[in-house]
């Protein structure tokens, strides 16, 4: 089973700040609309490979980015995926 991970933010301000602090860092991610299967305060989420989530989280924590949640979604095309909320160590 393949998975994609998402990070959500309490406000757009922190979503864009996250993008800004990750710029030029050796990790791949994309800012995307929050999937409807995830509940989020802000409409933009960060999508990344699940094996990059830990490294990205460390950069965000070091830059005091407020995070709302971490999620792992099953890659099943356009159908509503199953969602698992992840709890990462800060």
């Amino acid at each position, binding site marked *: 089973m393949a998975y994609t991970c998402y990070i959500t933010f309490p406000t757009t301000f922190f979503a864009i700040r996250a993008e800004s602090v990750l710029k030029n860092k050796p990790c791949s991610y994309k800012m995307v*609309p929050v999937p409807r299967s995830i509940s989020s305060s802000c*409409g933009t989420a960060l999508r990344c490979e699940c094996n990059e989530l830990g490294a990205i989280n460390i950069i965000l924590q070091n830059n005091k980015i407020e995070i709302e949640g971490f999620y792992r979604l099953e890659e099943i095309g356009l159908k509503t995926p199953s969602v698992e909320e992840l709890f990462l160590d800060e």
Partner: protein
Amino acid sequence: MNNLYFDNAATSWPKPESVYSSAENQMRNAFGNPGRSGHTRTLEADRLLYKTREAVAGLFNINDPARIAFSLNATDALNTALKGYLEEGYHVIHTAMDHNSVLRPLGRLCKEGKITTTTIPCSTKGYPDLDFLDNAFKPETRLLVINHASNVTGTLAPLKDMIITAHKHNAFVLIDAAQTAGSMAIDVEDFDIDMLAFTGHKGLLGPTGTGGLYVKPGINLKPLREGGTGSQSELDSHPESMPERLEAGTLNSTGLAGMLKGIEYILDRGLGNIKEHESNLRKYLYNSLAELPGINLYGPAAGDESSCIVSATISNTDSGEIGYILESSYNVLCRTGLHCAPLAHKALGTFPEGTIRFSPGIFTSKEDVDYLVKSMKEILKLVQ
């Protein structure tokens, strides 16, 4: 012949070229509705607002840019602060130099019986009576509103001293920086400012319809408007987090794109250089006008620190008529009358006639001032 513009205290003109082009670029390329959707054009708009907030934070030395909410102008920001903070029974202190953007919201709240106010008298040059201020605080005083620079005379309030006094009496301060943002150093963290209202279209060189309000962490204002923010859409109550808390509805991204370039221009040219340029111009204008017989000048003396404004009257002459002749015969644009600050005119002794206000800007030259003074000299000959 082009107009000579001496009305920068009303709105600055011209703007740097980058301000015009950035506003156009936003409409063409970063046109998404910020905070909504999530597509690339929205992200561009989000990035633009983020960058603008960071630029404002940098200019005013604000630690947390999220505490800056964008507004329509300084009036909007001041209304948000006053109506969002003041509660039944609060007492507010303000000065006689205040603009109607402070006087009218306070006046309404007083008329409704919600709050009480005390007006600090000001000298004929526009300086507030600091002894009066120190004695004006009551146990229920919760706010001191400070007009950083008068829009009639340019007189600068002793900001640091007044803030220290307010904090000594456990009151917050709200600074009206409509006339100083972009031309005077304002250090939010160093001055310990609680709330700062600014406009984008004057000293910050941006388009009209822009401005903002800084609110110190720990102060939670009741929003003036509630509605769409693009966040927490499932809730029927407005988000409490800043800046969304005070930013209901689609923001003026076009204007803010311009304001960002205005701030970048200021930082590039240097706030100190701008201040020096304007200070030299004001001194030159004041001294040149002072040599003309029959003209009365108001506000700080030529060498005193102030914002770039010189207010004048010609005895027994209608200031509006002088303004009309200046434009129709000399292509000089200025403002005449009461300048939305009736108590200031009472303090100066120019109520209800008002003054002729000249406000050079960062693109005004010494030659422009020479032309203005020559024009005034000719007009004075006509009226005497």
